């Protein structure tokens, strides 16, 4: 189990935010990079074991999730029921394997157990389910809804004068859902500056590139016209993500959106930028091994990830 360097107690009434980390610290960045690597490998292994799953969009958001869990969220395994914890909602629920992996890395669940993806009687369903996994915060899988749920949480936390913040990760294809724009309008109207949306802008959705399915550009202009504070960053540059999150936390009376430019399938060369790896795919042994090798796993690590289950 891995810990964030600056764990601090979350105060329950009139809580102060935990002091921000030094986000340029080389060791912090290396820790998060290691977490992201762990997430990518775990994603490949769990989808391999499951025999189905969406690798493309799980790989593209690995760095974002690692930054959130590794440095941003005031959330630790022993605070998952603290009313003043920060909340993270994976609105693009089909990236569940990445959520399970980052949760495993930071000690919210067991890493080996979390390889039981999509299996009967396992809590690691194809899409996150809060009744199975309390730290999933809500159940997602139908695009657009997670954003609204996060908005409801942010609204409620504000009513309680909590300093807790709410984060939601959306897919770019997901931005085509009308519910997303209902939530965008509503969050701005209610001045929910405790809400931060991250868009995993990998330029692809289920069947093809966004621009071929339903163009989203100019995405930042859309969100700005909906009265959001918007920044565009490289969604694989850990320092950029951390500083984006840092700035997002400082908006006043405006919700913040980070448009994270990413590569679908990031880290696995044969998947990168190819829509057919969106999902739901079955990975062969060879594909899984190739992917893990590309993710710098040693032969021993590959064996452990792909066969460790059976022992």
């Amino acid at each position, binding site marked *: 189990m891995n810990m964030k360097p600056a764990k601090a107690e979350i105060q329950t009434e009139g809580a102060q935010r935990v002091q921000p980390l030094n986000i340029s610290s080389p060791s912090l960045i290396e820790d998060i990079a290691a977490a992201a690597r762990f997430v990518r490998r775990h994603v490949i292994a769990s989808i391999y074991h499951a025999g189905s799953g969406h690798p493309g969009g799980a790989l593209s958001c690995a760095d974002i999730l690692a930054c959130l869990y590794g440095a941003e969220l005031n959330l630790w395994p022993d605070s998952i029921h603290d009313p003043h914890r920060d909340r993270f909602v994976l609105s693009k629920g089909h990236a569940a394997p990445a959520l399970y992996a980052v949760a495993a890395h930071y000690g919210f669940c067991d890493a080996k157990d979390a390889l039981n993806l999509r299996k009967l009687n396992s809590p690691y369903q194809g899409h996150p389910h809060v*009744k199975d996994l309390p730290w999933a915060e809500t159940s997602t899988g139908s695009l657009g809804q997670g954003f609204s749920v996060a908005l*409801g*949480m942010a609204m409620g936390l504000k009513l309680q004068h909590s300093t807790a913040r709410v984060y939601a990760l959306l897919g770019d294809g997901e931005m085509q859902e009308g519910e997303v724009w209902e939530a965008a309008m509503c969050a701005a109207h209610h001045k929910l500056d405790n809400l931060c949306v991250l868009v995993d802008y990998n330029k692809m959705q289920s069947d093809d590139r966004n621009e071929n399915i339903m163009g989203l550009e100019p995405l930042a202009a859309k969100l700005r016209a909906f009265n959001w504070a918007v920044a565009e960053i490289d969604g694989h540059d850990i320092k950029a993500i951390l500083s984006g999150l840092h700035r997002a936390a400082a908006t006043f009376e405006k919700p913040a959106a980070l448009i994270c430019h990413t590569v679908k399938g990031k880290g696995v060369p044969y998947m990168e930028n190819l829509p057919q790896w969106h999902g739901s795919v079955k990975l062969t042994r060879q594909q899984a091994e190739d992917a893990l090798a590309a993710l710098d796993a040693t032969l021993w690590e590959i064996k452990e990830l792909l066969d460790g289950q059976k022992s």
Partner: protein
Amino acid sequence: MAKKAEAAAPAPALIGTSGDSLREAFGKALAACANDFPKLVVLDADIAGGTGAHHFRKAFPGSFLQFGIAEQNMMAAAGGLSAVGYLPVVTTFAVFCLRAIEQARLSIAYAGRNVKIVASHPGIDVGPDGGSAQALEDLAAFRAIPGMTVISPADPAEMALATRAMLEFEGPVYMRTGRSPAKRIFGKDHTFEIGKGRIIRDGKDVTLIACGVEVGRALEAAAILADEDISARVVNMATIKPIDEALIATCARETGAIVTAEDHNIYGGLGGAVAEALARAWPCPVEFVGLKDTFGASGEPEELAEHFAISAPFIAEAAKRAISRKAHA
């Protein structure tokens, strides 16, 4: 644009606030019992004047949350409010609850959230707004969501009790109110329990099982039948799910014929729930009173009830058909 000079504004007579409709009863009850539920928040989609929620807004503006005309976001956000400790009551028209049913399914029922959904304007009771606004599908649709409790109280007194009972109940609830001035049926001694049907008039030849505005009409039908020496039992089935199977079986055994009456399509709603219960527990002939798989139309609620054959005389006719089928069963 030339702005016209300010003229003295005569106060408009809002249809929404006149009379003792179920929605008004709901809104008043909500405001009245709110102090006992400090976590209560009421969600509105720019229609509080129509749902009765305006009473709550007036009394507790700080706990009234405005979502604008955006029902999907409102419904799912209720799940989020529940997740951070609130007791959210989502209010809109029944047909717009349907618009957000997938949100109710996933972000409320599946996620296990303790959210109440209160739907005004169900059925042809909506009246002049017409067919587009008259939800005839909501009981069937919400009943099919796993774990969703579905209730439809019959009169203002019961609505007040049901409002409190719903707030005390743990789990997602879908409750129908109503738009038209409601008949008063129950007195001060009335009680309400989720999951329980009630015999409100006894009889032995047939049982009329009704919910919502049809309960009053079923009572009228029983009076019509009494004039013809037919003894009809009337059951107020205010909870459609979980349905009171034991009571239904008892009525089937004791009276041998059943009529269901609802302001809803005859498919899948109260009639469907009763037919399923009978098939499980005590097969028995049933006649279904409701909209016969057609949409509604504009008109006054009482004339529409006549037109679409859900008024008391039609319930009485259905009772006679049901009784005549006993022999063949």
